[in-house]
């Protein structure tokens, strides 16, 4: 009984801390203005929507990897996966949850788009360095 209570409490706090942690990763990117190139490539006009995430991640995989982004991107991918799962299950019963998950998924897409922006800039830099050599 006690173990079950501790398990339930721990899982609830785990969820809360995970959401806050992912939001702290995404927070830095929400104010970032995407470059015109990224907006053209991804089709994002003003603000990213939840459905853009998969497409942006596919584009990300085409760019050279940046080691420093890898951990963050994995955490956000897990977060996006859980949000999509929630949207397809529990959120169908609660409209407020549906709008919350959609908003969070949009933040994930924005985060991925900012990563794409950085990777493109990084690739450019590498090409420029190679050209100099």
């Amino acid at each position, binding site marked *: 009984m006690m173990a079950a209570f501790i398990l339930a409490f721990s899982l609830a706090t785990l969820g*809360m801390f995970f959401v806050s942690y992912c939001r*702290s990763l995404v927070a830095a990117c929400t104010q970032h203005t995407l470059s015109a190139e990224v907006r053209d490539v991804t089709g994002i006009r003003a603000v990213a929507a939840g459905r853009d995430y998969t497409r942006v991640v596919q584009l990300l995989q085409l760019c050279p990897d940046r080691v420093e982004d890898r951990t963050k991107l994995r955490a956000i991918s897990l977060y996006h996966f859980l949000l999509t799962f929630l949207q397809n299950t529990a959120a169908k019963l609660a409209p407020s949850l549906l709008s919350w998950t959609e908003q969070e998924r949009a933040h994930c897409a924005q985060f991925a788009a900012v990563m794409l922006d950085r990777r493109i800039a990084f690739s450019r830099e590498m090409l420029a360095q190679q050209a100099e050599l």
Partner: protein
Amino acid sequence: MPGSVALFLWCVGTLLEVCFVVCSLARKAFFRYFFLNLYFILSVLTSAARFLTLNAYGSSSDQYAHVYYYTDALLTVALFIALISLYSLVFGELGFSKQIRFAAVLLLLGTAAFSYGVVWQSEERLATSFAYELSQNLYFVGLVLTYILWGAVLKLREARTRLVQFILSLGLYFSAYAASYALVNLADKFSAVQYLSQLLACLLPLSWSVTMLRHTEDSRIATAPLVAVQR
């Protein structure tokens, strides 16, 4: 000897702990986050002691069991102190450091007394049972304290990115660990549960190292949008 997966996770965890200490030295933040570093240094030393005992006596020996449970209790106390040091950083500017230290000692002694109360009747292996019980209870107390600390961070609008991410990572670690302890009590026959704690041991030094590398002491973050459920 443990299996290859367990051994691999053990090595990765230890390397990540060393990585955090190196990152703090490189970022000149070793003394600012001294107790976090102390915890990882103790953890690396503990890993070495466990490995030597394991090699000398084997995993089913009494010696290994003693070393394992005593060092586990020691590490949990060190992590508890690291958590209190984060409290001091958050509340330090308000001048509550003394009261926090006093309350932390009281809480630690209270948890130890409660753990002893639970195991005092077991005649065999009283010391190891106490060490195990103390670790388990301190993880739960740590989880509750981190939850309170996160509430205080939001209330006080603490904006230091490093501190915020350290606290969030610690909250994730404590809650996942407390859940895994509860899961072991509920379903210890599942072997996957045994690997869970080792996997979790890798995540804390990883996220703290990333935080240390990615953010400077001057980085700031708005905490209001981080609340899991917006009011």
